[in-house]
């Protein structure tokens, strides 16, 4: 797996899918490029206008709680985010991100600063913060999720195998 490289955008704890893809933009759900213009708007209004391809969303605990809307990880991926790093993830969001091919990494994000340059190696399970020089490691994904991510998402995984297997 290739190395990912980009800047960190810091968020706090309990960023919900309502913060990521607000219900008031419900009518844009079949127009994902438009919906993506509002991604994370209720958590950090400067994020959507400022994010660059390759950047990381770096959050605290329980990222993605709330509604099961898969539009949430989809639009995070769509604006070019290469991975989400958080201390923990809500269950459905975690599964959805892997399914849409957005790596969700569980690690201690406390010391990563806003705007830090990060290099993430998914294969080795390492995050290097080039700004503060620290290296964090993270646990490998469960086997089935690793395979899904390697295929580029669940649809591709099932298309290739024609079935689900553990």
């Amino acid at each position: 797996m290739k190395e990912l490289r980009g800047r960190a955008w810091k968020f706090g704890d309990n960023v919900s899918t309502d913060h990521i893809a607000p219900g008031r933009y419900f009518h844009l759900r079949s127009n994902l490029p438009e919906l993506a213009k509002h991604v994370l708007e209720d958590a950090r209004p400067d994020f959507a206008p400022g994010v660059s391809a390759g950047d990381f969303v770096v959050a605290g605990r329980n990222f993605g709680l709330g509604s099961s809307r898969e539009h949430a990880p989809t639009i995070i991926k769509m604006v070019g985010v290469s991975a989400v790093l958080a201390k923990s993830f809500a269950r459905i969001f975690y599964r959805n991100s892997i399914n849409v091919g957005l790596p969700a990494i569980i690690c201690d994000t406390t010391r990563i600063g806003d705007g830090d340059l990060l290099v993430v190696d998914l294969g080795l399970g390492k995050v290097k913060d080039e700004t503060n020089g620290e290296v964090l490691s993270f646990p490998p994904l469960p086997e089935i999720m690793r395979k899904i991510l390697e295929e580029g998402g669940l649809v591709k995984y099932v298309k290739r195998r024609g079935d689900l297997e553990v």
Partner: protein
Amino acid sequence: MSEKIIGEHAGRSVSAGETVIASVDLCFTHDASGPLLISQLKELGLDLQNPRRTAFFVDHAVPAPRRESANDQKIVREFAKKAGAGFHEAGSGICHQLVAEEYALPGQIVLGTDSHTVTAGALGAFATGMGATDMAVAMALGKTWLRVPETLLVKVTGELGKGVFSKDVALHLVGTLGSEGANYKSVEFSGETVERMETSQRLTLSNMVVEAGAKAGLVPSDLETKRFLESLGREGFRRVFPDKGAQYEDTIEVEAGKLRPMVALPGSVDNVKPVEEVGEVEIDIVFVGSCTNGRIEDLRVVAKILSGRKLREGVRLVVTPSSRRTLVEAVKDGTLQTLIGAGAAVTPPGCGVCFGALGGVPADGERILASTNRNFKARTGNPEALTYLASPAVCAATAVKGVIADPGEFL
């Protein structure tokens, strides 16, 4: 109970922590996730494995308030009809209420593209929410992968006091566990208080476990479940209950008699306090509805409190029944007349303002008290408004008083 049910669907005995492939009894989606799901199904190039075990609901933005929603609903409607799946038109009600009324049975595995799919756990089903892609695969293959969850036992004993309902138990529980206290786990309810609850109250309990991150919220099926199903003319009841000596990761004891009417303060569902501790909080809009508390039993409590009274000057009350059956019942028994007479605006069955797209969005700087399940920033449609959560009884008492109020004196 989760291990038992998942084991039956995996064809072998399973234990917590394992990842297994399990067959699925019901897959459903709605107008909020349906279009994305349908595009994923097309991408997969597969048909529905079993249309009779698949259901589509138009419940979120109903009746369609704008062109984009109408177009999305058309996609769902046309797909469901062509595939021969169950289809529930706008106005039928919220998917979770209809799944409880028409589909879910004890011992089943039920999947929905909505986090509150857990609601059906109240009938003794293993019911959990997933995203659109997971559901597309489940609909196409008739199975899914699951990590068998650990179980938290919640034991509720004693008598609920006057003005205290299952919603207060649920809020108390989420407050105790915190917003991720049950992440990836299954919550199982037990104890005499739960045994004595009607299914409508149990549905509220199961519904809100996801607010603590849980994957499922199960109530053992019993004679009350049988009564509920039979009252709807449905077959398929069976008893599903935990084995003697079942393993629990932890047990939480709740003394019902000590609970007071509760409120969740704006911003997070786990920020819960008894009504008497929140001080004088003026409320502009009261909303009664949602898959948590929009059932006929909820509307009756509100009507009882509002009967012979008027809304406080300046307070708006919006009531959205959770299903057509609820609305029909409310028409028949006079509940609706009482609500309207007191000044309520009643909107068609569906999600209403719960997720912030229609039916009672608060103005900037206003406070809304809702019988729903979430109060994140902007949840009810306006980032400049504040959302509080409580039981329908607290909602009704508040509508009369204009400030968040204990319903005890009205009951």
